């Protein structure tokens, strides 16, 4: 883990090397797995994480989502920042 702890629209998030995103057939949904961590993701959260490839900026990810779901870009950006910051603080995301 490095770089600054606070994410911005310019940050390029990716999953931490020890985090695994997978579909969970038994419970029907997506989960993010880390050491001693199991996060059940809702559809939107899973969609956001599949866009976190270490290259796309959070701004670009939010724009793409806003378009896809016909939602106001500023609100989407806020939500995405909040969710990814939380995962960053849990050590499951690099940026």
């Amino acid at each position, binding site marked *: *883990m*490095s770089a600054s702890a606070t994410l911005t629209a310019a940050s390029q998030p990716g999953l931490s090397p020890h985090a695994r995103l997978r579909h*969970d*057939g*038994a419970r029907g949904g997506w989960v993010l*797995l880390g050491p*001693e961590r*199991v996060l059940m993701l809702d559809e939107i959260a899973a969609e956001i994480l599949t866009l976190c490839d270490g290259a796309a900026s959070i701004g670009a990810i939010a724009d793409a989502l806003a378009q896809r779901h016909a939602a106001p870009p500023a609100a989407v950006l806020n939500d995405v920042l909040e969710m990814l910051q939380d995962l960053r603080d849990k*050590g499951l995301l690099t940026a």
Partner: protein
Amino acid sequence: MSAPGPPLALLAELTHRCPLGCPYCSNPLSLERVRDELDTTIWQRVIGEAAALGALQIHFSGGEPLVRADLAALVAHAHAAGLYTNLITSAVLFDHRRLAPLKHAGLDHVQISLQDTAPDNADRIAGYAGGHRKKLEAARLVRGAGLALTINAVMHRQNLARLPEMIDLALELGAGRLEVAQVQYYGWALRNRPSLIPTRAEVAAAVAIVAAARERLKGRLVIDHVVPDYYAKRPKACMGGWARQFINITPSGLVLPCHAAQGIPTLRFESVRERPLAEIWERSEAFERFRGTAWMAEPCRSCERREIDFGGCRCQAMAILGEAGETDPACALSPHHARLLALAEAESAAEPPSFTYRRYANAPSEPAPA
């Protein structure tokens, strides 16, 4: 009772053999023997069954899992089954030769326990000369190989004063996560409680140190803190509730709802040698006994927290009260809470007696090691 949901994780105790002798070890006093251990084929079958049942993670632990020559084969099997693989190790047996195949097998994460930051005291606590130095080397190997690392710092009255140094050491070793694991009193730790239990003031100081470090190290180091609940007002949700999330399998194949469950003598545990894991999870008597809330008596039965902490820890109720179905005495609503508190206060104020190390030879009324 309706069928339970799927388990989250499998705790695979591959062996009870271990070169160390930690007096706080959570293994039962009667350690299982090498001749009774499950072989590779059975473990692989069981791992497949756990994944099919919906488990998402597997923790390879022990004893010391690196004692088993087939560890990498089991990790590979779990990885192929889609499980998140975690190795819980004392690390003194780690070297390049062991690490490469594990990484290749798809190991996701390594957790290394440290006994102290002061090498001499660390080795004294573990009962293993030179162990601390080997652990530091192993931690560097793990990070060098690009694997994620958690430092599991086992803290108690004989090292808690060096918690700040422990946090620094975890950072220096490149850990992404530090588990400040204050000793929980089961197995060998229960036997050694007077040598281990800190005072209430020491626990409070540790809580403050962790809180400050979390703030300061946000984004660099994740810190989880397990506190001894003897001084708590409410108990921990032990194992996330009995038989709700975890399956523990002992080296010989007994299936337990938690690693300490064998401390409850009235429960009968089934073996993966005799029954499919799914049936044991869903129907075995030991799992059904304290699952959910129907077994509860007052004050838990009518308590608003009964689905939050599930009445606390069954094994602690057993250990302290001799009755596994009672409210965990760590809960201030338990009529026996004052007794637990008095115990903790008296033991932590007295001089610590010397350790009873976790060794086959110190196990009660056991035949000599195989």
